[in-house]
């Protein structure tokens, strides 16, 4: 039981990180109908920026987290303005290939700027854990959950109630009709990329914290988060969060129990599991758990 609860808690914390990355995918998908494969690059940049703000320039850690998110937002908006804006109207696969190109570019650039070796983020969480009865819970997981919860709440309030949030949803619903109201698609797409960059950066920071370290391979979280959006429905921010949590939880439980109970599945099964779940869900619900078909009566 103890082990189960520990795995669940760690799984939810991991899932929260997936949820952030998945949310970035969904926001961009809703604005452009394209999956942004550069998302993993934004995760890296976020972690390295936080390292600079905190370790290099000595700013307080939590300020560094906020600045890293702002930096991520700026990188996202910049990539959109400099590259993707020029591709408006091109076929989706062209744009997707370009986002892969951007990812490769970031992957090459980051080690040039920050080096190959892992860096210590210097977060106040460390590898400490606290005991709740018999259960040991990582401090970093607590903070990850808390920060992600706050950011998600802010995001959903913004999305639901702000002028820009309404405009973003209107554009996702009918881009041309939104344009007729004076809601420029370019503005919405730019804001979407900025949001994706910010949440990805936060995912990077939380991954690098808790002893994870600022490393080149944290971008892989973006690949693992991909099944989360397919699972939750490409166009559903709420689905992204649920999908992320499901993936994180199942991965955590699999890594805890599978070597013991089903060793014949081989090592690394937990990494494949998200994709297995994704395929099963898609067989039952082709639009994902929360994906919407159009509600439109004529």
């Amino acid at each position: 039981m103890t082990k189960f609860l520990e795995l669940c808690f760690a799984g939810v914390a991991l899932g929260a990180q997936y949820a952030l990355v998945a949310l970035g995918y969904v926001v961009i998908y809703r604005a452009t109908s394209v999956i942004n494969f550069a998302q993993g690059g934004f995760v890296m940049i976020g972690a390295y920026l936080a390292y600079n703000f905190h370790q290099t320039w000595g700013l307080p850690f939590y300020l560094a987290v906020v600045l890293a998110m702002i930096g991520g937002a700026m990188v996202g908006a910049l990539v959109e303005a400099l590259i993707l804006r020029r591709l408006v109207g091109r076929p989706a696969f062209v744009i997707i290939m370009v986002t892969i190109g951007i990812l490769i570019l970031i992957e090459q650039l980051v080690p040039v700027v920050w080096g190959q070796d892992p860096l210590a983020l210097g977060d106040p969480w460390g590898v400490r854990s606290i005991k709740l009865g018999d259960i040991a819970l990582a401090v970093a997981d607590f903070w990850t959950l808390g920060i992600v919860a706050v950011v998600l709440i802010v995001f959903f309030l913004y999305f639901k109630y702000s002028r820009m949030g309404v405009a973003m949803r209107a554009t996702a619903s009918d881009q041309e009709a939104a344009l007729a109201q004076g809601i420029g698609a370019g503005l919405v797409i730019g804001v979407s990329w900025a949001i994706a960059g910010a949440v990805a950066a936060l995912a990077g920071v939380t991954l690098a914290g808790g002893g994870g370290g600022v490393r080149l391979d944290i971008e892989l979280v973006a690949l693992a988060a991909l099944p989360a959006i397919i699972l939750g429905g490409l166009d559903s921010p709420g689905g992204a969060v649920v999908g992320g949590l499901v993936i994180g939880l199942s991965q955590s439980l699999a890594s805890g129990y599978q070597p013991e109970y089903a060793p014949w599945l081989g090592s690394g099964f937990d990494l494949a599991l998200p994709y297995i779940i994704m395929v099963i869900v898609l067989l039952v619900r082709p639009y994902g758990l929360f994906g919407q078909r159009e509600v439109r009566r004529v």
Partner: protein
Amino acid sequence: MSSEREQPILRVHDIDVVYGEAIHVLRGVSLEVPTGAIVAMLGANGAGKTTLLRACSGLLGVQQGSVTSGMILLDGVRIERAKPASVVRRGLAQVMEGRRIFGELTVEENLRAGAFTRRDRSGIRSTYEHVLELFPVLGERRRSQAGYLSGGEQQMLAIARALMAAPRLLLLDEPSLGLAPMIVEKIRDIIAAINRTGTSVLLVEQNASMALSIAHHAYVLETGRVVREGPGPELLDDPEIRRLYLGASEGPRHSFTTLAPTSRVRPWMP
């Protein structure tokens, strides 16, 4: 230089519109909407009515179309190359064909989206209240998802959403399309009421009897050209108009272009 006559709120002067650099849809179209008037634009399916409205509202771009010659003046300012947002800010709002409400959003959110270009909170608030007075049913359903409204309610929402921009000129693209006669009458009365509050209207319709019953002036568009114009009541009494657009079935259907060879449209050659 300056004429005594008040400047029309909209003047379309001799425009040509081409889609995709190849499909020539409007040819030398000119029209005027005098300030404060309701002007109707009649025409069969495919005549180019929607294209004309897109040219005015800046929506040609998304269709790979453009105004290749001529000009469009809103209050004397050229807008034929303007972006939709700047046209809306200048006081022109369009109700698109097929309603095009945001089905996943609530009624209230649809209306907020209509006010996107405005920043004056108190102004938006008072427009909102005014709009709900005009359409009480939208007030009752303001938290409903717009996709679940009836067709007539959706059309009202589309008009209300456009009004949220506080336009001085309202473009309506076939607001009667697909609606029951009783609802069409209601929509017509609402358009007349909107006009009485000082909003000029350019009303595109295939339903000529509806449009002509409230229009001060009307134009007829056929395969991309204006083939006829006149005061609303005059066109309403015109036997030719009656035959072509009001379903009076005397003799075979034919068009103005076949009646008047001088204005026959040369078919476009690829």
